[in-house]
């Protein structure tokens, strides 16, 4: 029987890790017979060298090169080793995959399970306030600025400190207008406009990872508390929790958006035990890099995604134990120069 070929992006398992390696690891653990393809943007991405997780890797064109370049590459991969399902895991590439998911399936038989354009836009950082109002939760006071002029205007009546956020990535604390201006320009240079100026929210960070069925239902979700993070805010230690307030928020989010595909809800809770004051900080339209935490708690969400796109059905239980502990660690891999040479000179 032909092996199913599943391509996964975000294979940068670095200090700012992408979700690709844990997604592929989850799939391999559920079914070692699948053929995993890593989609990389950099020949140094660790996933390129992790042959125990990825059976092959290919370099994708940057999202700025547009859909035609990405489509050509996906078809090239399909011709070389087959391609049945694609799981994009990086924010910057998602608009292309979301916008062309129907074309990929209809014209090339490549399946995916992603939010619709409308759902994708609902949770965009610059639309978060409206979404929070719809689902009845708090949100940090946020200003959206689309240019240097509007940034300078907004900074005049901003209270400090303020969190300066990029629309895709990066967030920096700023304590003065100069500080904020510098951070905003730096982020905009890398990730473009708009930039968000957000009032900081204090409290503990609680997150939810899940998979929506596209009809308002859940195909599984799990809540955690981040116990320790890196300087970049990436989880290093975490613990599973069962919070009634967070559960209710997740249900309202799914019901209101009819979310289709993977998601992560990033929340701050100032009085966690009382279930009051939940702030929704961000909705990520993809698996987070800590998705293996759920796999380790018997909620293999990447595998559920594959089952759902293959059959229209999957295990949908949300049963997990509170108090499961997550520890991330560093791991080294030593190989010879051959692979690097291959990736440097060949069209891959």
């Amino acid at each position: 029987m032909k092996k199913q070929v599943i391509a996964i992006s975000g294979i940068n398992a670095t200090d700012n890790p992408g979700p690709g390696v844990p997604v592929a690891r989850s799939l391999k653990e559920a079914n070692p017979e699948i053929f995993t393809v890593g989609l990389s943007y950099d020949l140094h991405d660790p996933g390129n060298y992790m042959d125990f997780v990825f059976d092959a890797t290919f370099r994708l064109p940057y999202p700025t090169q547009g859909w035609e370049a990405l489509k050509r590459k996906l078809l090239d991969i399909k011709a070389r080793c087959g391609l049945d399902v694609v799981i994009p895991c990086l924010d910057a590439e998602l608009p292309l995959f979301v916008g062309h998911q129907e074309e990929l399936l209809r014209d090339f038989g490549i399946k995916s399970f992603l939010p619709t354009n409308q759902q994708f836009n609902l949770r965009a950082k610059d639309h978060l306030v409206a979404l929070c109002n719809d689902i009845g939760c708090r949100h940090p006071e946020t200003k959206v600025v689309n240019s240097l002029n509007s940034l300078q205007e907004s900074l005049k009546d901003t209270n400090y400190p303020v969190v300066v956020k990029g629309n895709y990535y990066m967030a920096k604390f700023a304590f003065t207008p100069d500080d904020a201006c510098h951070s905003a320009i730096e982020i905009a240079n890398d990730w473009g406009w708009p930039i968000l100026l957000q009032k900081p929210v204090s409290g503990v960070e609680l997150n939810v990872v899940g998979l929506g069925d596209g009809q308002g239902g859940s195909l599984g979700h799990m809540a955690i508390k981040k116990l320790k993070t890196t300087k970049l805010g990436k989880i290093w230690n975490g613990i599973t929790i069962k919070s009634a307030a967070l559960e209710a928020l997740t249900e309202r989010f799914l019901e209101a958006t009819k979310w289709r595909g993977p998601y992560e809800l990033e929340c701050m809770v100032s009085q966690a035990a009382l279930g009051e004051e939940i702030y929704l900080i961000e909705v990520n339209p993809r698996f987070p890099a800590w998705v293996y935490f759920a796999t380790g708690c018997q909620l293999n969400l990447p595998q559920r995604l594959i089952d759902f796109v293959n059959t229209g059905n999957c295990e949908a239980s949300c049963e997990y134990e509170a108090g499961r502990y997550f520890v991330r660690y560093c791991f080294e891999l030593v190989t010879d120069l051959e692979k690097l040479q291959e990736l440097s000179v060949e069209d891959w």
Partner: protein
Amino acid sequence: MDGLAKLAINDKGFTFDPATGESFRMNDSALVIIRHLRQGLSPEQVASEMSRSFAVSESTALEDILELMMQLRSFGICS
């Protein structure tokens, strides 16, 4: 005492609140107090138990119990 009932407590006093992910360590006397409160005893009944088991007056025990309950309230564990 709903929040108390949900706490996971081991015999060394390590305590985990599954609703918030908070964990803390209780000393021996707090552990005894919590066990009694979880059994449904009132603070006064617990104070009476404590004075029988330890060399402490009921009023001192009650003060300690109320102080512990105040701390638990500040963690959002009991109302």
